[in-house]
Each structure stands twice: as C-alpha cells, then as structure tokens.
C-alpha cells in the first residue's frame, strides 16, 4: 500500500529523517511511536506531500509520488492540531470539503453520527472547544471512505467516550481492508488497536514489527515492557 525507500529530510542542519525505509501493508493498523522530535509527523507529512523530502522515494498504491496531487484522493488525514477558518460553520466546512473532493466519493457518516457532529452543525468553528474541533476533524478524516487513513495523535484531545468510538471505528475499518496509520504517545492505546509498531528514534526506525513478534522477541507480555527492553538493548531491525 505505502512503500517508503531511504527517505531523507533535513530542516537546515537538523536531519529529521535519516534514510527511513518502511512499508505499510493493507488491512492493518500501524502505530508510529517515538519521543517528541523523532520524525513521526515529518514521515506522515512526507506521505501527504506536505513536506518535500530531500531524497528517497514514496509509493502509494504502486504510484510513485512525483508532485501530482491525484494520489491523495485515496488518503484521509487528521492533523495533530486542526484549525479551520474561525467564522465558518461546521456545516460549511463539510460542504467545502465535499466540494473540493468532487463527485465520485461514497460518504461514510458513521463516525460523524456517533460523535454527534450533527448537534454542532450550525456553530461557527471559532466557538468550539479544542476537543470538539478534534472530533470534527476526526469525523472528516473518515468521511470520504478512503483506503488509507492517517491520524496524527487522534485521541490526544478527545474525551474517553469519543476516544473509544474512534478506536472502534479504526478497528472496524481495518476489517474492511483499509490501511490506518496513527501516531501516538499512549502505549496502551497503541497496544489495543495496532497490529504493527514502528518505533522511531532521532530520524531512524528503531524497530518495526508486529505486536506478536515483539512479545516473542523480548519475552514480555505487555507493550510498554517490550518497548522498554528493546530501547535498552539498542535497535534490532
């Protein structure tokens, strides 16, 4: 689904990605984890074309990224901080996004319904709380039923109930054969929903394996212990 080869990105002197190669397979939930500044967001933004990498290649569904924007119709994205135009209503934001995406999309209102977006349809974005904006942004990421959904810290600002709804939605979409990539700092959350853990450190991939392999390799039975023991031993893969 997504194949990344030797991706390098520098911001001035700092190297945010130092030759990252990774594959995100279809029908799975991949959690990209790692400390602040380890390159998680840069990696995701490179896939979306928001960050222009210095070298390396990215292929989405077998198409190599070359500056054209068409491939993004298959990708849904929820940014870490969302900020819509303050004076627009929720309804208008949704209408605009539908307008831009054009016809030929099947809409998936399930998450929007469950997160009660209808209730705040007529409120201007500027009057919503941070968590409510996050809910809107999350519902929008799933709205166009794309094959690939990228969520940058999806549950960071959500209340426990909404966060549970989102997690269930992620699992349901995985069953539909979609690829979902999330970043998260919450290990228990990643443990609950992810099949594959990609741990980044200072622009490199420290390890990339499925949950089961991790448990077997480290002899631990919980993700935080497994990660802790891996980081102490140094990178394996």
């Amino acid at each position, binding site marked *: 689904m997504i194949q990344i080869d030797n991706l390098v990105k520098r*911001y001035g002197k700092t190297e945010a990605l130092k030759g990252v190669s990774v594959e995100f397979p279809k029908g799975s939930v991949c959690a990209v984890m790692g400390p602040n500044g380890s390159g998680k967001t840069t990696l995701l*933004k490179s896939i*979306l*074309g*928001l*960050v*222009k990498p210095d070298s390396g290649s990215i292929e989405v569904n077998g198409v190599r990224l070359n500056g054209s*924007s*068409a*491939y*993004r*119709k298959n*990708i849904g*994205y929820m*940014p870490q*901080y*969302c*900020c*819509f*135009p*303050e*004076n*627009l209503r929720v309804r*208008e*934001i949704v209408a*605009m*996004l539908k*307008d*831009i*995406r054009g016809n030929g999309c099947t809409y998936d209102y399930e998450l929007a319904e469950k997160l009660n977006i209808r209730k705040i349809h007529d409120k*201007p974005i500027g009057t919503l709380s941070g968590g409510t904006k996050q809910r809107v*942004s999350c519902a929008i990421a799933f709205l166009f039923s794309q094959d690939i959904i990228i969520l940058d810290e999806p549950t960071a600002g959500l209340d426990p109930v909404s966060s549970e709804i989102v997690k269930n939605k992620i699992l349901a979409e995985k069953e539909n054969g979609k690829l979902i990539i999330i970043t998260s700092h919450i290990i228990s959350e990643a443990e609950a929903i992810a099949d594959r853990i990609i741990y980044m450190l200072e622009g490199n991939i420290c390890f990339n394996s499925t949950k089961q392999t991790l448990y077997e390799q480290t002899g631990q039975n919980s993700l935080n212990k497994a990660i802790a023991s891996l980081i102490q031993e140094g990178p394996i893969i």
Partner: protein
Amino acid sequence: MTTLKILKYVVYDMLRSRMIIIYTALLFLVSFGIIYTGKDVSKAVISLLNVVLLIVPLVSIIFGTIHFYNSREFMEMVLAMPVERKHIFWAEYAGLSLTLAAGFTLGTGLPLLIYGGADGAIYLLLSGVLLTFIFCGLAFLGSVINKDKAKGIGFSLVVWFYMAVIFDALVLAGYFAFSQYPLEKATIIVSALNPVDLARIFILLKMDVSALMGYTGASLQQFFGSWFGMMYSGIFLLLWAVLPALAALRIFNRKNF
C-alpha cells in the same frame, strides 16, 4: 475551478471577520468626516489621498500577514486533499485581497458618492484597490519567507515603513547629494521601485496639483505629460500586484508544512 470552490469559502470566512467590518466602518467615518468638514469634494479627495496612501497599505500588509499565519493549519488540511498548491494559494490571495478591496471601496466610495463624486475620485478608488492587492501580495511573500509569525509581522512592518515613509526621504537625500546633475529621468525610474509613490503619481496626475506630487511625480508630468504618466504608473502598479504574489507562490510550492 478548484480555486473558485476554495475562494468561495475563504470569502465567506473573511466577510464575517470582525476586522473587515471595523476597517470598512472606520474608512467610512474618516472619509465622511473629511468631506463633511471640508465642504469641497475635490479638495477632500486630496486629503483622502493621504489616508489611502498610508492606511490601505498598512492594513493590507498587516492583516494579510496575520491572515496567512492563521490559515496555515487550514491550508495544511486542504493540501492533504487532492488539491494542487497553486489552487489554495490563489484562493487565499484572491479571497483576502478581494474582501479588503471591497471593504475599502465601500468605506471610501460611499461618502464620495453621497456627496456627488469628484474629479479624481474614481482614480483614488482604483489606486486604493491596486494598493490592496499589492500589499496583500507582499504580505504573503513575507509570510512564506518567514516561518515565525512574529518575524513575519516585523518584516511586513518594515516593508510598509520603507515604502510609506523612508523611500521619500531617500529620494530627497539623493536629490540633494547629486543636485548638480540632471536627475529628472533617474527619479522617474526610481519611482517605479515604490508602489505607494506610483499610486500617488497615478492619482495626482489626474488632479493637476503637481505641488503635491513629490519630486518624482513632478518630473514625470513635466517630461511626458499626464497621459504617459498614467500609463507608466498604471503598468508598474499592475506589475507590483502580480510579481510579489508570483514570487510568493514559487516559495509556497516548495514549502514544508
């Protein structure tokens, strides 16, 4: 097409912004006040000229810069969709400039219309609109160069201060330093470096008050007459409206969000 779709919503958002409403109301009060107290509409146009040459660039460049930084996350979200970067750029640029220009035209034009209009009024409005586009373009240029919001606003203030205040002083200083030489043609070329100067020439050539034109304007009229001066300043004003925006777009295309 995509540009127009995004533009529609940028304009919706801008029209409901408090800043635009305050800007329009303020311009209306000032213009109305000047015309009402002056009694003579033609003279009022000259007083309004100073408002146009100082306030319009200042508001456009500062508001434009703030708007760009506030829209960053929104642009990021739109760019994650199948949308080319140039579409969102032009939508933001056009949305910002058009609403500010509409606010200006309404705020300044309405009082002039109420009092029956005057000779240079249409040129006053035209150059105000052009200045709005020019300084919004400069605002975007400053914003794409500087990643930091505070730096971007500082950059914009410096650009405005240079064009509205320092430039004239530099031209005068140059004139005194080289007063032995014939400088008329040189000053005409130099005037093209400053859109505020060009706008002033553009309006005043039509009003026949060369005393107020500044050194560059006076030379221009003396040498080429009104018609050429209008063409000259008009063409360079248009270039100023297009070139900084194009430069900003080039950088925007390569930018990391």
